[in-house]
């Protein structure tokens, strides 16, 4: 099914972008593969990285024998901060306007916080 193929390809692209953002430094395909930490072929990671580069989503530079990839256009950071501010205002704007955004998680009260922390601690013990 091509639609599903596209979907999982898109998901992997996002996963790799998120990975590069979270480490915050240029990475080689091997490093990305290791960081993703799941059953992915090296070639899959490499193909996805170079596809993202073709789409101008990633910059790359040759270091030694492998390319290192990083998120393109970090100069955009300033504008992104402005956006963050605008979106915060939107979120804080009351139910009406904020309702078009679906946030991943809402705020927690202290009891819930402790409960979740315990749940996490328990599940971290038995991976």
């Amino acid at each position, binding site marked *: 099914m091509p639609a599903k193929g596209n979907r999982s390809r898109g998901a992997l692209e*996002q*996963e790799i972008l998120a990975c590069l953002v979270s480490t915050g430094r240029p990475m080689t395909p091997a490093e990305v593969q290791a960081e993703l*930490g799941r059953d992915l072929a090296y070639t899959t990671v490499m193909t996805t990285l170079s596809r993202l580069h073709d789409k101008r989503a990633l910059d790359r530079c040759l270091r030694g024998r492998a390319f290192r990839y990083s998120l393109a256009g970090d100069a955009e950071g300033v504008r992104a901060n402005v956006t963050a501010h605008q979106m*915060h205002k939107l979120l804080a704007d009351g139910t009406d306007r904020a309702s078009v955004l679906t946030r*991943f998680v809402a705020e927690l009260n202290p009891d819930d916080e402790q409960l979740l922390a315990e749940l996490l601690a328990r599940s971290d013990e038995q991976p």
Partner: protein
Amino acid sequence: MILFAIVPFVFALALHFTSAFISRALPPAWASWLLTVLSLTVSVTCGLILSAAAVISLARLPEAAQLGHWSAPIIEHGGAPPVWLGVLATLVVSLLLSMALIRSLRSISAIAAARYALRGLEVPQSNLVVIENASPTAYSVGGLHGRIVVSTSMLRALSAGERRVLLAHEAAHVRHHHYLFVQLCEVAAAANPLVRASVSAVRVSVERWADEVAARDVGDRALAARGLARAALACSTGQPMTRAALGISDGDVVLRVRALLSAPPTQRRQLAALLALVVPLCWLAAAVVAIRTHGLIELAEHAYFS
């Protein structure tokens, strides 16, 4: 006729008391669909019946009868409600209609505003927006082409597997157009305050829906639960938002984590089918009222000319 006329109102009241139950008892995708379709149906059919009541009770006014060439006494004998009720119904219907219209326009403008704020910030050829931000946050923005927004600090707070959960969750919101379910319920509630409870119920349902999709996509319910819990904790240690955007009570994250830690939701086909039955019943009631109203006016017209 009265019996038929009150059917949608009875169901509106019933929906008020059962919305939360529906969102808990059914698989989240089914619950989201049912809640949305039910609240729209109930809201529209209540409006139709109010309009019919307005028309028929104002039709007995001699001035209206004169203008429309029908016989006022026939309408009166046909069991039309008193005129004051007609005036009241007219006022209520126009008020609710304008509320629904205002709510729709607000939804559209809010989506436009959010999309405008994000213009050109997507990672090229994707729907992902990464923002440099001190406070961990992640959300999806509704619209024709939805966007996923995550802050760098949120991504850094999560492990690789947990990041997959978060991305899969937000992608599910976008792919299944969850904002539409919420916004349609909002409009239905604006047009009929009796169904207001369905709004928060549908919000919970679409979150659970996205959680279940994420759990399926990563193939690990425990990982999905962990991702959700970690993200929630990251948010609470960061700068708090001034207000919960979704209006979800604080306990909901814990409920969602618990749901992911237990078995996938059971499909209760019979319960879903039973609830779905309300839709044709409401439309049937509205149709009967409309046909009777029309029939009465036709009768009065014949009487006028004979």
